[in-house]
C-alpha cells in the first residue's frame, strides 16, 4: 500500500501521471544515450588502434614477412619462428588448461562439499585471476624449469600460460553451471539419472556456451603475454623451427617439438618496438596485425563450437 501522501496526490491527478511518465522516459533516453556513448568510445578506440596497426604495417604484410626468420635488417626480418612459436605454445596451453579448468569447475560447483574450505578455495581462485602475469613466470621458472627440468621449452611456456588462464576457465565454468535452471537438474533426477549423467548429458552441454566464452577470454589473454615467457627464457633471435610433429618413419608422430626452444609474437614485437631504427616500428605493427589474426583464428574454433552449442539449446 502506498502511504506517501505526495504520491497519492500524483496518482489522483492524470496530468501529474503523464508528467511523471514523461520524466521517467527522459531518464531512459538519457541512459540509452549513455550506453551508446560508452559503446562508441570502446569501439572507436579499438578501430583507431587496429586501423593504425594496419596502415603502418600494410607495406610488410606479405608472404615473405610470414615466412622469414628474424633478422637485424628490418627489410629482411620476418616472423616465421614467432608465429609458429605462438601457435604451438597456445596449443599446449589449450590442451592443458581446458580439461583441467572445466574439470575443476565441475567438481567445485557440483560435487565439492559446501564448507569453509570451499569458500577459501573460491576466494583464492578469484584472486589468482588478478595476479600479475610475471608472478606466474617466476613460479614456472622455479617449478617447470628448475624442479621438473623441462628447460626453456614450448612445453614449459604452454604450461605457464595454462596456469595463467586456469582461474578464468574455472570461474567461468562455475558461473555457467550455476546459471542452468534448477528445473533441468530436477527433470533429469526425476527420470532416474545419476548426478554424473545429469551433469554430463544436460547441465554441461547447456553451459558450454558460457564456458567457451571463458576459454576465448583466456586464450586471448595468453596469446598476448610477454613477461612470463621472458622470465622462463623465451628467446628473441631464433631462426629454426621446432621439429615437425609428423614424421615419415615409424611411429609417425613426434612430440620433440614440445622440448624445442622458441620465441613468440609479442616478444618479437616488443623487441622491434625498442629498436633505435624507425624501420623496425613498421615490422612491429605488421607483427601486431598477424597476432590479431592469429588470435581470431585460434579462437574461431571456440567461437564456432559456442555457436553450435547455443543453437542446440532449446529450453
Amino acid at each position: 500500500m502506498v502511504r506517501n501522501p505526495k504520491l497519492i496526490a500524483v496518482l489522483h491527478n492524470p496530468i501529474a501521471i503523464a508528467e511523471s511518465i514523461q520524466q521517467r522516459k527522459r531518464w531512459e533516453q538519457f541512459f540509452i544515450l549513455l550506453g551508446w556513448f560508452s559503446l562508441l568510445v570502446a569501439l572507436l578506440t579499438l578501430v583507431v588502434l587496429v586501423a593504425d596497426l594496419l596502415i603502418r604495417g600494410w607495406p610488410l604484410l606479405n608472404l615473405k614477412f610470414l615466412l622469414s626468420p628474424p633478422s637485424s635488417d628490418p627489410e629482411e626480418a620476418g616472423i616465421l619462428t614467432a608465429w609458429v612459436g605462438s601457435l604451438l605454445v597456445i596449443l599446449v596451453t589449450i590442451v592443458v588448461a581446458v580439461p583441467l579448468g572445466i574439470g575443476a569447475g565441475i567438481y567445485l560447483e557440483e560435487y565439492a562439499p559446501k564448507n569453509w574450505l570451499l569458500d577459501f578455495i573460491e576466494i583464492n581462485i578469484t584472486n589468482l585471476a588478478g595476479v600479475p602475469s610475471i608472478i606466474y613466470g617466476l613460479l614456472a621458472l622455479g617449478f617447470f624449469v628448475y624442479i621438473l627440468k623441462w628447460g626453456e621449452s614450448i612445453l614449459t611456456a604452454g604450461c605457464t600460460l595454462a596456469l595463467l588462464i586456469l582461474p578464468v576457465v574455472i570461474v567461468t565454468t562455475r558461473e555457467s553451471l550455476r546459471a542452468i535452471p534448477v528445473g533441468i537438474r530436477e527433470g533429469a533426477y526425476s527420470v532416474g539419472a545419476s548426478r554424473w549423467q545429469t551433469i554430463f548429458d544436460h547441465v554441461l552441454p547447456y553451459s558450454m556456451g558460457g564456458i567457451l566464452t571463458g576459454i576465448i577470454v583466456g586464450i586471448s589473454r595468453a596469446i598476448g603475454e610477454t613477461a612470463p615467457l621472458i622470465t622462463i627464457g623465451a628467446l628473441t633471435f631464433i631462426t629454426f623451427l621446432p621439429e615437425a610433429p609428423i614424421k615419415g618413419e615409424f611411429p609417425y608422430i613426434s612430440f620433440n617439438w614440445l622440448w624445442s626452444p622458441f620465441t613468440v609474437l609479442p616478444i618479437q614485437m616488443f623487441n622491434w618496438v625498442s629498436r633505435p631504427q624507425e624501420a623496425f616500428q613498421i615490422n612491429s605493427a605488421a607483427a601486431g596485425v598477424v597476432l590479431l589474426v592469429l588470435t581470431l583464428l585460434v579462437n574461431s574454433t571456440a567461437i564456432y563450437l559456442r555457436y553450435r552449442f547455443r543453437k542446440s539449446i532449446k529450453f
Partner: protein
Amino acid sequence: MSTSAKNVTRLGVIAAIAAISSTVIPAAFSQQSAPVVRIDGSSTVYPVTEVAAEQFQKQQGGKIRVTVGISGTGGGFKKFCRGETDISNASRPILAKEMEECKKNNIQYIELPVAYDALTVVVNPQNTWTKSLTVAELKKVWEPDSKINNWNQIRSEFPNLPLKLFGAGADSGTFDYFTEAIVGKAKASRKDYTASEDDNVLVQGVSRERGALGYFGYAYYAENKNKLKAVAIDNGRGPVMPSEKTVLDGTYQPLSRPIFIYVNANSAKRPEVRQFVSYYLSNGPAIVKKSKYVPLPSSAYKAILARFNKNQVGTAFGGKEAIGLKLDDLLKRSIQ
C-alpha cells in the same frame, strides 16, 4: 541434445589424450639434430650479437644454429653461471656476486670486449643555449635529492625554463653505468624524472619538450639525429662530442663504456662455439658498425681473438664496474 553431449565427449577425450601424452613424453627425446650455440643476456649487446649470429648462420648454411635471448645482463649471468648458456651478453663487466655464483658451479669464462657504446646526453633541437655540460653540472642535476628544476639553476646564463628530465629505468645497465660515471655511485640517482627501459620512449620525450634533458645509448641518438641534439661532455679537459673518433681515442670520457661477451670455457671446447666466437671477432668491425655501435680497431679484435684462442679465463675488472676505461687500458689490463 544428444549431439552436443557427444561433442563434449569427443572434445574431452581428445583433450585428455593430448594432455596425458604431452606431459609424459620424457625429456630424453629433446636432442636437436644440428648443434646449437645458446646465448642470452643484455639487451644493449643484443643487436651486435644478433648480427653476428645471423651472418654466421648464413655463412654456415644452417649447419650450426645460434639462439639469442634478452634477459638482461644480470639475468643472463644467472643462466650463464648455472651452465645453461654458452655465451652471455653483458653491457658491464661481471660483478663479484656473479663471479662467486659461477665459481660455485665450477664455471670458468673467457671475457671478450666486442664494442664500445657511448652514453649520449641529449637535449631538444630548440635548445640553442646548451653546447656542452661539465660532469660536475650533470652530477648536480642527477644526484639523489637534487633540487635543480630549472635550466638557470644549472648555469646562471641559461634561460629561465623548467627542466624536464628523461633517463634510463633502474633495471638497465645503462642506468648503472651513468650513475656510477656521473654521480660516482652505481644506482644513486634522483627519482623525479621520466624513466623508461624503452629508449624510444625517451627519444620521443626529449624531442617533444623544449626544456628536456636526457641520456641513452649512442645508437638511439644516431638514428634520431634530426629530432635530438647531442651535448658535448666536459670532464675538465674541454668539451667533447660523442663520436666514433672521440670514443676510440679515449677523449669522450667518462661516458663511453665497453660491452662484452662472456664465453663459457667448457663450451669453448665445442667446435661450433669456437667457430662462432672466431667469426664474431674476426668480423668485428663490420658486425659492430651494422648494429650502430663503435667498433674497436681491427688490431684490438686480433688481440682479443688471441686471448680467446689461448683460453685465458677470468675477468680483468675484479668484479667492479669499469668507469672511464680507455681502449688501451682495456686491452692491457691483465686478467686475474
